[in-house]
């Protein structure tokens, strides 16, 4: 009886370990996986290209999502204000254009041009990168700080606390986190949630 219950506990523990292992969502403190993806200008961009920066504001975003659109100008602002402080924005569109045609590479080029993106807008071709980060939606920010040759996740989540109206924002999560990191501290908030559009993959049904 006792052996049996010990065995059950062991089995459950193993199952739980697998369950957690299957869940690849990065946590704060984890090393950010490197990637090489095609930018809207046709050139390849890797995370490791930023080895001379303090960090990277990695944003999973896209063309079609109304929440991404609401925050789009603020993503541009982030790059304008923080690229010069060595915290540039890198944007990745994780959606499958066969599911959302408006998120295809050509449409991305158009959007980047129209809005005057000052940062790379990369296409996650084959959708291999977003699962490594555990991004689930657009927009979804991963603030990465460089430690020598690797980047670690310092903050995950929303850009700020008001998607509707930039003038009514009371907490700028990403900016606060960068300021704290610049001051040699850990971010005061390491995770903040927001509604976003689920990343579009082909349906199983």
């Amino acid at each position: 009886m006792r052996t049996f219950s010990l065995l059950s506990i062991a089995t459950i523990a193993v199952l739980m370990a697998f369950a957690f292992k299957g869940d690849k969502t990065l946590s704060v403190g984890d090393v950010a996986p490197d990637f090489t993806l095609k930018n809207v200008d046709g050139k390849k961009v890797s995370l490791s290209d930023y080895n001379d920066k303090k960090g990277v504001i990695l944003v999973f975003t896209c063309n079609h999502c109304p929440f991404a659109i609401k925050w789009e100008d603020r993503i541009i602002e982030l790059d304008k204000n923080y690229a010069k402080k060595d915290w540039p924005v890198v944007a990745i569109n994780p959606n499958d254009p066969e599911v959302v045609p408006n998120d295809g590479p050509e449409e991305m080029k158009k959007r980047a041009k129209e809005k005057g993106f000052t940062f790379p807008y990369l296409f996650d071709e084959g959708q291999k990168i977003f699962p490594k980060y555990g991004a689930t939606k657009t927009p979804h920010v991963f603030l990465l700080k460089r430690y020598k040759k690797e980047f670690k996740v310092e903050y995950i989540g929303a850009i700020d606390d008001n998607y509707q109206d930039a003038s009514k924002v009371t907490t700028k999560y990403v900016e606060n986190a960068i300021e704290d990191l610049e001051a040699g501290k850990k971010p005061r908030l390491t995770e903040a949630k927001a509604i976003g559009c689920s990343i579009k993959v082909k349906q199983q049904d």
Partner: protein
Amino acid sequence: MKVVLRHCFILVAITFFACGGNNSSTKNHNEPIVEKTEEINVEPEAPIEIRSVDFNQLAPIFSQQNDTTYVINFWATWCVPCVKELPHFEALNAEYSKQPVKVILVSLDMPDEIDTRLKPFMQAKAIKSEVILLNDPDMNIWIPKVNEDWSGAIPATYIYKKNLNTFIEGSVTHAELLSSFLPIFNS
């Protein structure tokens, strides 16, 4: 408020059915009234009223301690997978209309698009489940209150009866919705 009303309604309906056992003419007399009331609610010409609430106003729908199974779906008209799974929720709502089941569609459409987008959509699709617009930009406060594990992506669905609950992030098929709903409903 609407939730309370619906319950009174169910209670009244149950009372009538109970009475109907003794007097079949009462039952026959009352049943069409129930049907008619529901029909009025869904008539396409009837003006659609949508409650726009912040999370504090919405919060009571997540913690009702009665025998009703609540099926709460977070969606938006512009969210393709949400719109795709909507018929499953509508079907559940229709199938269990005589049972203690309440389907609530919490819309995350932009508040300035209620008249231009949400209402026309509901009219075109003849949505019969209750739709409430959640207008609360401070999402980091309320998303974890719905469910700690919710990343914030929609669609998402919360099903509960009293203290039994389940949360689904992502879209569901009809079969998946039923397999999440039935164990709670039958408990």
